[in-house]
């Protein structure tokens, strides 16, 4: 609480939190702090994961994702803040008693145990009887389509097989919360796509609460119901993939999502427009103060005809399935636009006009 807060605000916050705590049937993180020596890894992280939601934790490497995961898992204690699961504070509950599953980035398959025994490990820890263990192991192997590899030595498995066995091992004891740390981290692109589809199929089938950690926004968007974006130990934005992509909360989030068409803009007093390096652009309501403006890559048409038309030089065009990602050089700035694949484009190096509706295509970020 800062000194300038009005009295009673703290009480309101506490009440609000208690209400949330009683409603949320999943995971609540409340103001988590963690430092390692001088370096602050997490600076007050709060978010909520609902029951049976697939929730992605997204951020560049070094943003504090792994630390946060370890704190939720119970492998690391936070300096400050609480983790609640189904309304219960997990402080002091060690990792092995939380009933959370964590699939590690480096998988951590036990080298001295067979595939079968790796999967059975969590079940044995949970005190399952051996016929049940056997049944569950077969079920899990079936789920990940590796029934034939039951007695293999884990060191002889391929990368993709290891990944699926690690998933099966994590899922076997029916964790209340499934955490996946960069599950597709080290795999090649083709394998990634297949595994991502597999993973989605498996997770949808299970109706499981999932925390999916990744640095890859496409992966997060493909799999998650909601995402949180973390940077430098702070929450940047939370929302559905669509919301986050359509309304990034800051220039950081925009850049992180690959929305790089950013430029500076100044207010023009008494005018519904802004002053930019691209010239004067009409904008409903004008600007209150200097800002950074995002020109959305998907809201721009090739050719003249929109409310605002600009002239630039097409420098490159790369084919991306249904779209063509075009790089266009306008007034000393490089922009990237996604045009439908059937668009007729001139040869790279030629000049071409583009046009957009500023009220739809522009998004304004005021500096804090």
């Amino acid at each position: 609480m800062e000194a300038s807060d009005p009295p009673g605000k703290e009480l309101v916050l506490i009440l609000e939190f208690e209400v949330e705590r009683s409603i949320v049937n999943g995971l609540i993180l409340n103001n988590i702090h963690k430092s390692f020596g001088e370096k602050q890894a997490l600076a007050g992280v709060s978010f909520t994961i609902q029951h049976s939601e697939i929730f992605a934790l997204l951020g560049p490497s070094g943003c504090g994702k792994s630390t946060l995961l370890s704190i939720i898992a119970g492998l690391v204690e936070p300096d400050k803040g609480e983790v609640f699961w189904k309304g219960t504070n997990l402080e002091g509950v060690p990792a092995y008693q939380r009933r959370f599953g964590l699939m590690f980035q480096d998988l951590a398959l036990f080298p001295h145990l067979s595939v079968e025994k790796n999967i059975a490990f969590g079940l044995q820890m949970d005190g399952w009887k051996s016929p049940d263990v056997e049944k569950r192991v077969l079920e899990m192997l079936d789920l990940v389509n590796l029934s034939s590899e039951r007695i293999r030595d884990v060191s002889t498995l391929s990368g993709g097989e290891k990944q699926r066995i690690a998933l099966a091992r994590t899922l076997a004891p029916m964790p209340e919360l499934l955490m996946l740390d960069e599950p597709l981290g080290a795999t090649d692109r083709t394998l990634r796509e297949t595994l991502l589809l597999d993973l989605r199929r498996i997770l949808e089938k299970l109706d499981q609460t999932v925390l999916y950690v990744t640095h890859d926004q496409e992966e997060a968007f493909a799999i998650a119901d909601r995402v949180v974006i973390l940077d430098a130990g702070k929450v940047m934005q939370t929302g559905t993939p669509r919301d986050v992509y359509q309304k990034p909360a800051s220039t950081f989030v925009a850049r992180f999502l690959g929305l790089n068409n950013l430029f500076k803009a100044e207010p023009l007093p008494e005018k519904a427009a802004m002053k930019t390096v691209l010239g004067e652009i009409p904008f409903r309501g004008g600007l209150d103060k200097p800002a950074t403006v995002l020109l959305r890559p998907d809201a721009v048409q090739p050719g003249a005809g929109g409310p605002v038309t600009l002239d630039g030089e097409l420098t490159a065009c790369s084919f991306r399935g249904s779209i063509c990602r075009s790089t266009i050089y306008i007034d000393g700035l490089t922009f990237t636009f996604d045009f439908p694949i059937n668009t007729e484009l001139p040869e790279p190096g030629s000049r071409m006009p583009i046009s957009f509706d500023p009220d739809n295509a522009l998004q304004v970020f005021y500096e804090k």
Partner: protein
Amino acid sequence: MDGDCSAVNKRRRPDSRFFSKKPELRTLLLWLAPLLFLLLFYFLPMGSILELSLSRGDTAALQDVIQTLFSDSIRDIVAFTFGQALLSTFLTLVIGLPGAYLFARFRFRGKSILRALMGIPFVLPTLVVAAAFNALLGPRGWVNLGLMQTFNLAAPPIAFNNTLAAILLAHIFYNTTIVLRTVGDYWSSLDPRLPQAARMLGANPVQAFSRITLPLLSPAIAAAALLVFLFDFTSFGVILLLGGPQYVTLEVEIYLQTVGYLNLPLAAALSLLQLACTLALTILYTRLSGKIQQPVERKSAEITQRVPRGKQRIFTALILIILVSLLLSPLAALAVRSVTRLDPERRQQSGFEKGITLDYYRALEENPRQSLFYVPPVQAVRNSLSYAVLTVLFTLALGLPASWALAYDHGSRLNRLLDPLLMLPIGTSAVTLGLGFIITLDQPPLDLRTSAILIPLAHTLVAFPFVVRSLTPSLRSIQPRLREAASMLGASPWKVFLRIDAPLIGRAVLVAAAFAFAISMGEFGATALIARPEFPTIPIVIYRFLAQPGGMNYGQAMALSTILMVTTGGGILAIEKLRFEEIGSF
């Protein structure tokens, strides 16, 4: 859902917080028993020995001690102690490293039995080693006898006893197995694809070795070299029996001052000097190993070992010939000597039968003079075995928590403080240790002087640092992620240890147990001082036989040495067998 919440609450246990939250506290708890043991059976005896010897002398005597300590003769002794230890360690590595490579990377027939046989020199009492070398290279040894017979010489052509070469050879003989095991075991679990990757990146074989394999091996090599050096540094019996009067190390000087001149103040001062040297070495080693130790993925022997082909067969044969002739020929000479009669018995000047005989063995069960206090040597074998089993149990019970603390809380302040202290018993003269036990443990509440438990306790003290040293690198090399993964799958810290650490360090535990067993079977210095006459160990009885004149006594000493060789070899073979099966289950 409320049911789930209460289930979470019920599973909360206050004690589990010690393990997840307070690493320093966990370290302390793990150290508790080992520390208590060291305090009672090491620091207390050492403290009282110093107190006794230093306070007894008046200031003039103390000045005298200090003056002697800085004299030329002591300086020469220190220089010789360091010099011979360095040279011995270097030669041991030169012989041992190719052997370690051979055992780590190749499969060949008779490997496990050879490996077991090569562990035998390490467990032999110095008296037996001296006897074995005598039986091979001494004036009446097989080699000299053979040469004399072949070339019709009047005198033995090879002068072996009382030379530096004898000392070095005996040290190599003793310690090569440390290099073979410590480095070999580590090497065998290193991924052979790493140097191969270096080769693919354009490194020649020498570069691949020096840039990839050697740095990866360095923790194991450093550990082995340190152990070998400490052994050579504190070497006692070899120097005394094979080096003769002109070669004196610190340890020998301590013994001479204690037993020979009863100059306890000087002996204590020399012990302090020796302790300071070993402590400095140990601190250096701890610093070094902290820097170079990193978790390495262990590979099973199936992946890392292959059958030698082409030139590799020549290499294999060459190394095996060197190792066998160096390590096994004295043993063979000893065994053959134990069943061969060369000299006449007393009062039997003529007409004795030369040749193969089992008389020496038969005599071990007899009580020739019907003496009341005579213990048949067979009983000594039983004593030694029980002491060794107890020592293995004690050292593992104390060594496992200590190495667990060292491996888990790497870099904790407590560990940095305690780690060097562990090595102190190795650097302490066995004679001093035994003396300390007698002085300290003869009054309540610890009146153990008449108790047979004193011997396994002393052996545990000697073996404990070895066990910790061989377990810790192995525990450390387990990827921490594996423990976290087990923990996430619901394994409590104890279960994590049982299901992850224990199977993964199974090999190392067996090696450690073998070492402890061997040390206990062969320990002589401390045992000589504390053993009760009615509970002798095998080395004590061998010493008694060797101290008495006559071919029969010499023969019985040879026979008993052979029995010691066979029992310890059998123990190590059993462990090899376990090892083999354990690897099979990977």
